[in-house]
């Protein structure tokens, strides 16, 4: 962390002390933890780079993919990797590389969708439960217990089997599970923060509960929210892949990484082993990237861990 140096002469611009500190920073204060991350955490930076590459690939899939990802081409079935098909082709002659590139879109869409909706839901549930405490908290926590008593994969399978397998329904199912699961961590953080004197002070000057939650509590739980979001992004991408692998995810012919490894495709892997490698490697690399990025973020965003290196 960059230390603020005391200034000898105060400028007469009326900036005030915090204004001076801000004027002296090379970067805005909220950016500092991330600068710290890039400077001191090579593994987390690698994770961030993987995420950026994935984002780039997903956004520009139309330009990057050499072939159509779903159109079968029976003349080119099960081709080993060569110069025209860098990662080979599958049992329907579709280019594996193009499917991997478009698969990034699906993974990212499901992951980001589930994290955005899920984490927002978790913030509301955890915030209300932790802030109000008492009976509200007990009631909410019993419901959370009840949902968490179901293994995530089984709950997701049940929800998707009811809603029907589609991209949107998977996002809904994952968001629901994430909202409930993550709410507990946010509740814990809120309980810690609401004991602070500035919260008492806000209450004393007559601020409403909503005002306190939004303006005093929320800004102070952004660090755990960021960390949670990064961890659950990996979890959501893996969960989508697992569902698609089992045949309850994104319906074919959409190129989901998990679906590309599914049991139906397995018998072709024995004659075309390249089909078993690329989707799994992409998935592992992306989840690894997210996990190390999440670890790094926790280190730089959690004040107790600031200054640790690794």
């Amino acid at each position: 962390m960059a230390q603020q140096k005391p200034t000898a002469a105060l400028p007469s611009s009326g900036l005030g002390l915090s204004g001076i500190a801000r004027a002296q920073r090379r970067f805005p204060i909220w950016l500092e933890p991330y600068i710290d991350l890039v400077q001191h955490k090579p593994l987390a930076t690698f994770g961030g780079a993987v995420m950026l590459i994935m984002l780039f690939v997903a956004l520009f899939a139309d330009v990057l993919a050499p072939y159509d990802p779903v159109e079968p081409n029976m003349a080119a079935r099960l081709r080993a990797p060569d110069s025209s098909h860098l990662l080979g082709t599958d049992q329907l002659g579709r280019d594996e590389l193009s499917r991997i590139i478009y698969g990034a879109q699906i993974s990212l869409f499901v992951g980001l969708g589930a994290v955005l909706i899920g984490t927002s839901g978790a913030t509301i549930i955890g915030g209300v439960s932790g802030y109000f405490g008492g009976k509200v908290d007990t009631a909410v926590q019993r419901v959370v217990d009840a949902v968490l008593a179901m293994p995530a994969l089984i709950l997701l399978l049940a929800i998707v089997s009811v809603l029907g397998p589609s991209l949107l329904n998977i996002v809904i199912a994952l968001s629901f599970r994430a909202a409930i699961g993550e709410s507990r961590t946010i509740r814990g953080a809120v309980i810690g923060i609401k004991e602070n004197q500035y919260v008492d002070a806000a209450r004393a000057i007559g601020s409403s509960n909503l005002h306190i939650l939004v303006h005093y509590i929320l800004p102070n739980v952004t660090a755990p929210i960021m960390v949670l979001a990064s961890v659950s992004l990996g979890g959501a991408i893996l969960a989508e892949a697992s569902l698609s692998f089992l045949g309850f995810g994104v319906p074919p012919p959409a190129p989901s990484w998990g679906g590309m490894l599914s049991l139906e495709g397995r018998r072709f892997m024995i004659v075309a082993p390249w089909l078993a490698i690329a989707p799994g490697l992409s998935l592992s690399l992306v989840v690894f990237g997210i996990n190390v990025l999440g670890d790094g973020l926790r280190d730089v965003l959690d004040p107790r861990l600031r200054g640790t290196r690794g």
Partner: protein
Amino acid sequence: MRTYVLRRSLLAIPTLLLSSLLIFSIMRVLPGDIIYTVLGDTLVNVPQSEIEALKKEVGLDKPLYEQYVTWIAAAMKGDLGKSLRYRQPVSDMIASRLPVTLELGVLALLLSVIVGIPVGVLAALRQDTLADYAFRGFAIANLSVPSFWLATLVVVLPAIWFRYTPPLAYVSFFDNPIENLKLLIAPAIILGLATSATKVRMTRAMMLEVMRNDYIRTAWAKGLPERVIIYRHALKNALIPVITLFGLQVTAILGGTVIMESVFSLPGMGRLLIEAITYRDYTVVQGIALLIVVWVVITNLLVDLSYGFLDPRVRFR
């Protein structure tokens, strides 16, 4: 302590009831008439009278709350209803599949403890050395590599390299323990490694925290041997939070068995669940989900109670 045990046990009851309500609600939101879906798969041109009879038989003609109460009341007596597809009692179907899942789960859990805790302790004791980085890398790689991919590779690669395919017929442990273990060892290792990752990270973090305590410094100052300090003083305290993980991991392993049983064609409860979901055999799905929830809630209860025994501070909260 008695009040703690009583209070914690009572808390499990609303959780169980709410979970069962959740399962029931999910299954009943099914779009379309379940009966038609079920019969449509197996029979063509089913007469209306038969449909009505089946509806009556499974109680679908009654209002929802009544259906729920009947289901729960029967479940408490061990009756989970009949499979819509096979017309067999669900409890019998589960009972015949349960041993496979139990064996796989227990093996995986054992492996994750045998690997996870020592690796976590070693990583903590050799903090910031090459060994520490290697162990942490191992843990994070385990968290990142999807177990279904690893399982697929374990099945596909030997088939390519050695033309070896795992035997498809399942053998019970009591009939032929060697053949049985041959079938289960690969899925158990994959599942065990996947769950060991969080144990490694947790054990390492807790050991690092505990080793910085004053009483550990005192133990060093007294000249106690390293082994005594690590095992008797540090590890005992560091493992308390790791035990909490157990509850979470039983849940995770139960989810993992679904995938492992599908990949390795093991006739366990997880595969039964997948089949039941595919054919919308909702009484079976409901029954398995309920059993799993009871299992998880009881494990969590035991974990919390053991916490009370291990950490005196918990009982007095």
